[in-house]
């Protein structure tokens, strides 16, 4: 399979090269290179302040890098951002949904934002795919955290993106709901070959969702490989061990 990929390289859905971002002199992201092919499932991990969210926001065009280039879904940022975002979805566990709208209305609205002229079929499909039938006519503020996360994912997939970017999608969810969210994401990946780029502090979640992990510390990539390869690189049993080692190195000796 790897040989096949080498012979017929899969077009990159994301190619970020040499990204640098500093805020008031403090470097948040430093010379970051990141490439995702169609259908890749990549976890972006690192301690707080490692630069994960800044990296995601640069990839999405919400923050402009100081240096470096980003090609997203075949379009160069920032000039072709709108065109690129037609093929990218974004979900953040910490972002609310518009209040006073029913789930169906909110989905219809975001279908419009995605430029879908007749939103009804896309909305119906998303509701069916994520099992939201019973919630469709409830207002967003009446939903539980888990339900809101599912609606957020449905919202981000209305236009069937090639890449879904998820920033801590299951933060503050109980394990049962978090498991349901993960299953939905894997189903989505299997159905549409959607590439996933996920940040999370839940190592088990990353191991379950992602085939590749990029570990960041102080704005730099310190490891890139499968969860097992990363554990081997840090000479620990699992991803959590590697994460803890990186965090300890960052803190320095006590």
């Amino acid at each position, binding site marked *: 399979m790897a040989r096949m990929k080498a012979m017929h390289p899969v077009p990159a859905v994301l190619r970020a090269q040499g990204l640098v971002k500093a805020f008031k002199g403090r470097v948040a992201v430093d010379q970051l290179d990141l490439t995702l092919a169609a259908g890749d499932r990549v976890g972006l991990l690192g301690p707080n302040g490692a630069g994960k969210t800044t990296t995601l926001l640069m990839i999405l065009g919400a923050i402009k890098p100081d240096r470096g280039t980003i090609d997203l879904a075949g379009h160069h940022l920032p000039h072709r951002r709108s065109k690129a*975002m037609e093929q990218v979805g974004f979900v953040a566990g910490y972002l609310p949904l518009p209040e006073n709208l029913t789930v169906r209305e909110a989905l219809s609205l975001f279908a419009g934002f995605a430029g879908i002229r007749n939103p009804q079929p896309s909305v119906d499909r998303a509701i069916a795919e994520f099992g939201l039938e019973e919630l469709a006519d409830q207002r967003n503020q009446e939903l539980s955290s888990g339900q809101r996360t599912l609606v957020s994912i449905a919202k981000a997939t209305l236009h069937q993106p090639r890449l879904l970017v998820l920033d801590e999608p299951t933060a503050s969810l109980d394990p049962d709901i978090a498991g349901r969210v993960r299953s939905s994401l894997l189903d989505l990946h299997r159905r549409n070959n959607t590439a996933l780029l996920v940040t999370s502090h839940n190592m088990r979640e990353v191991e379950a969702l992602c085939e590749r992990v990029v570990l960041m510390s102080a704005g730099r990539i310190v490891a890139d490989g499968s969860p097992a390869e990363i554990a081997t690189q840090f000479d620990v049993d699992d991803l959590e061990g590697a994460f803890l080692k990186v965090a300890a190195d960052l803190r320095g000796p006590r």
Partner: protein
Amino acid sequence: MNLTRVKAVIKRHWLILFRSPHRWFEIAFWPLMDVILWGSLGYFIAQENEASRASVPYLLAGLVLFWTLTQVQMTGSTAFMEETWTRNLLNVLTTSVKPIEYLAGIGFFGLVKLVMTLVTLTIATIALYGFDLSAIGWSVIPIIGLLIANGWAVALIVVGLILRYGQSAEILTWGLNYVVLAVSGVFFPIEALPAALHGFASILPTTLAFAAARQVLDGGAVPWSSLGLATLGTVAFLALAAWFGAAMLSVFRSRGFITRYS
């Protein structure tokens, strides 16, 4: 420009208005209170002094035209602020909606709210004081057009300031209108202003628009040359405001200010 996305922006803000009864205050209640306040003041002045009988039409024409600018400006500014209040800004920024499409959506939505406000004002001024703005005639249309464009320009500046300085700049949404109210001669000729302000007031396109309305109301001819000058000034003001908004969006993206709203 993708019209589907523009329509989605309009729908978003229409649903907010439709579902929030308190937001109807700025369409119906505040304009009505203003009509009562300024109409009664004009009526009182006219009663006291026969020579001032024009004060009711002066004040009410100024008020209706001022609300034209205000409604368009406030709708544009508060529609954007709504995204910050509800932490929806990142949701919008990470869709394919372009800044120009977003602005077109809230600009059009401002026109919808303006029509509703003008209906309220017209009914109130006719019913309570027997004043009908259409007495100005067709020339009211270019005057209203100029004030709409100036309202959009002020809204762009407010949005730019919020992008740059965050929610603390929101106070300017209401404050900037009072600069226009004070120095544009909304209710009186600018000669009544302190002498030091004459120069500044006379170059504002809004001053020329309000003065044109009063001239026609007094039975004079439409001052087309004056309206032409106001049009040039308005185009320049809009271009400056668009440049400022774009520059502030660039600063917003460069400095990562989106994290204020996520």
